[in-house]
């Protein structure tokens, strides 16, 4: 049986009142991320200049986990350099596998609210959708 406490306030708040869910003006990097089996579908939009994520937003649809995770991710990577963003992404993906240390998870700030996904294999894809899409953009070069 799944963890009872999973849908915590951080998560439901980012789902219902996202900070970064809107159409970005003139993004220079746009990438769609899809989980075909469950229908999560987001489009990540960046203003990515000289290796720095200057602006970021997402639009799309999906479960609370996919939406909240993408929203929290953007808060974390805004203004960050490529290497810093990839570093956070690496921690997040390892956290979801249950392999990150507590100190590392602290670096993720609110992202730590998704820690319990490691006990819910059916929802891993939802939690990593935003991060996976970000990695694809950053690793394109």
């Amino acid at each position, binding site marked *: *049986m*799944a*963890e*009872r406490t*999973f*849908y915590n*306030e951080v998560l*439901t*708040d980012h*789902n*219902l009142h996202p900070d970064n869910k809107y159409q970005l003006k003139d993004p220079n990097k746009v990438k769609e991320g899809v989980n075909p*089996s*469950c*229908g999560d*579908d987001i489009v990540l939009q960046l203003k990515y200049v000289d290796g720095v994520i200057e602006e970021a937003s997402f639009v799309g*649809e*999906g*479960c*609370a*986990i996919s939406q909240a995770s993408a929203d929290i991710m953007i808060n974390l990577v805004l203004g960050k350099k490529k290497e810093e963003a990839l570093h956070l992404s690496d921690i997040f993906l390892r956290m979801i596998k249950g392999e990150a240390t507590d100190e590392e998870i602290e670096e993720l700030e609110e992202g730590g609210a998704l820690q319990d996904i490691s006990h*819910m294999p*059916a*929802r891993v894809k*939802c939690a990593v959708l935003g991060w996976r899409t970000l990695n694809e953009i950053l690793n394109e070069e």
Partner: protein
Amino acid sequence: MSDNLFTKEENDYIRKDFPLLNNREIIYMDNAATTQKPVQVMDSWRRYYDEYNANPFRGVYGLSVDATECYEDSRSAVAGFIGAGSSSEIVFTRNASESINLLASSLCDMIIKPGDEIIVSIAEHHSNFLPWQQAAKRLGAKIVFFECEEDGEFKAGKLKELINDKTKLLAITHLSNVLGRINDIKTFADICHEKDVIISVDGAQSVPHIPVDVKALDVDFLQFSGHKMLAPMGIGVLYGKGELLEKMPPYMYGGEMIETVTRDGATFAEVPHKFEAGTVNVGGAYALAEAIRYYEKTGFEKIMARERALTKAAMERIDAIEGISVIGSQNAEDHEGIITFLVDGVHPHDVAAIMDAEGVCVRAGHHCAQPLLQYLYDIREKKNTGGISTTRISLAFYNTLEEVDRMAEALAKIRPEMGIV
């Protein structure tokens, strides 16, 4: 009436036969996906392997003859269960999907010419849509959609308008796995036959829950899966009218479907064997026959009375919860154990995850029926949370009123838990 149906003694009497329901602390409400298995059925499967197993048809020795008898007696049991005229009208397959693929290949090759039309209902499971879609592409035919009303009813008048000189086939479900509503197959069959159109019916959801008589319905083909009706996974059925099956070419080639084989060609066995290439699933067929005996022993009268009372209770409980809307008909009588719904503001995957945390197994997603859900989504002016996805509960006679109550309690907690007041 429901007082007598759901006494503790009665519930215990039924549920003692289902080990999983006793071994796991869950409320299982995904019966449209697959049912749990009674101990009698799994014992019979084991018994076949412990006492009768040999490769059927081939051996001259007694044991092989026993295995053949197990298989052919099972075929007769299936024929009797659905009212087929002869057991040679029953082809064993892996599941309903394979049965439909067989038709889409063999039957379509025989009857479909470029420019012909195949009518498919909008409510079909992908299994009863994709095989026809691909056959139409292969043979240069056209797929025509038979659409339902918003309450899930398929109207005979609409079907009549769709049929023309090019129409060769109608593929439609007896009972949609999303809408849960019984379709008027006999009327549709009469309309088809007036115009020499073949009707093929997906019985995967109807055969396990209501009595189905292929002669009374006058369908040309019917398909269903064993695993949705108490039998193990891996055994399914294609019923076809004898005169059609006899004319159709084989679907797969291999052992035991031949009469003679030479360097240059072959002649094929009689129906149904010409459609059963290779070593067949005797254990599965034997267990399916035991599942049929289980149905006959329990009786559809009791099964339907329980399932309909459970459905009515579930609809009432769901109606009382704010922010939940049921897809299709709003009347309990139009839902044969299947209730698909939306929770306003909450994505169906979150609904299913929270229900799972309460121990209730329900299905979330597109239920392998994306064209239908897209159609209903468009009708609803795209107002659903979660796009075309929905949540579904599907009941079986071994469910109880207490389980329905607990399901509804779990459902009532979802919107508050997700921060929606």
